[in-house]
């Protein structure tokens, strides 16, 4: 497997030390990493989930809007940030792989390196109903 870009390596290292959930994907949208706080909301450890294509992670958590309508991948902030190369935000209802439904607020942003190279995107998110 090819080495990740240095910016992505540093992003993962930073995320692994932060206490807010962070989710990182590559330019193709493939999930590269999420941290321990994210594991608590997604209901599965990253080591179990592993890297997965966008088509899988964009559906496996069953994202819907507030009215329960399924959200297509393009409606997810992380996919929008990746495709539009600009920050995106919205609330999303998901069902973690532990079977627990949650409403999360997501802020996603593209990761751009020198020469405007698109390196991927990252999202921070939190449970809006958490005390």
């Amino acid at each position, binding site marked *: 497997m*090819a*080495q*990740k870009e*240095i*910016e992505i390596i*540093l992003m993962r290292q930073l995320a*692994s030390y932060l206490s807010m959930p962070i989710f990182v994907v590559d330019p193709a949208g493939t999930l590269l990493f999420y941290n321990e706080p994210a594991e608590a909301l997604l209901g599965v450890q990253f080591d179990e989930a592993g890297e997965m294509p966008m088509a899988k992670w964009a559906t496996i958590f069953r994202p819907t809007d507030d009215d329960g309508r399924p959200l297509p991948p393009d409606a997810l902030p992380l996919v929008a940030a990746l495709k539009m190369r600009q920050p995106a935000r919205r609330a999303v209802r998901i069902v973690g792989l532990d079977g627990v439904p949650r409403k999360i607020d997501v802020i996603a942003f593209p990761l751009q*390196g020198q020469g405007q*190279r698109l390196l991927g995107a990252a999202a921070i998110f939190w449970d809006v109903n958490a005390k």
Partner: protein
Amino acid sequence: MKITLWGTRGSLPSAGPETVRYGGNTSCVEVRTEDGSLIVLDAGTGIRRLGAAIGNETRRLHILLSHLHMDHIQGFGFFDPLQRPDLEVHVWGPPSTTHDLRTRLTKYLSPPLFPVRLRDLPSKISLHDVSIEGFTVDSVRISCGLVCHPGPTVGYRIVEYGAAVVYLPDHEPALGARSFPVAPEWTSGFDLAKDADLLIHDSQYTDAEYEERPGWGHSSIRQTIRFAALAGVHRLVTFHHDPSHSDDMLDDLMDDARRNGPMPFELIPGQEGMSFRVPR
């Protein structure tokens, strides 16, 4: 290729009786390719003595800067060949996200930090922002990649006839890792260093010093050895020695490293004046 170390010290020139063997000059390495090209890795104070050793028959050379910290460019203005109008000099180095190499380099090579402006040097100097995709120098392919060190910093991999020399003078692949090494794909510099015939790598600190300075962009000797083992290199040259480390202390650190067991490569304490053939 023939590789010669002209400056092995990190951070600050450190002349004195206690640094005679490892050397006090900062980063500079000469690479002479089989095809006769001259590639100079970094322009620390070691480049001054290299300049005196370059004959007038040389009409073109390439200086590859890993980054623009002072210990890697301080010798530039004292490199005598730059006074020759018949010499073609190509300088390669990393841009920042907002400034090209010329803008960044001339911050030092201009008054008040230096009396002579880059444009006033007689030789024919061309500056090139390095491309992450790599580039070609004469007949030699150079791969480069951003590596973990504060500010835009690249490492270089020079390949000629299948033999690879890799230069990572300032590198902290262990930054943020809870235990090092980690998986190769998550290790800064791995692709550059993989299976290198000769790896010249940052080994600035002891383990105790590293604990005090995480994020400063350098490695302990133990981390460097682990990185070299992960990358499967054949020879490791320690480099960028801390200015406070005397010859005796560096000897002791190398002895300690060797006592930790056999290594899957040859460990060479980098000393000013050393030369290597690649392949042997």
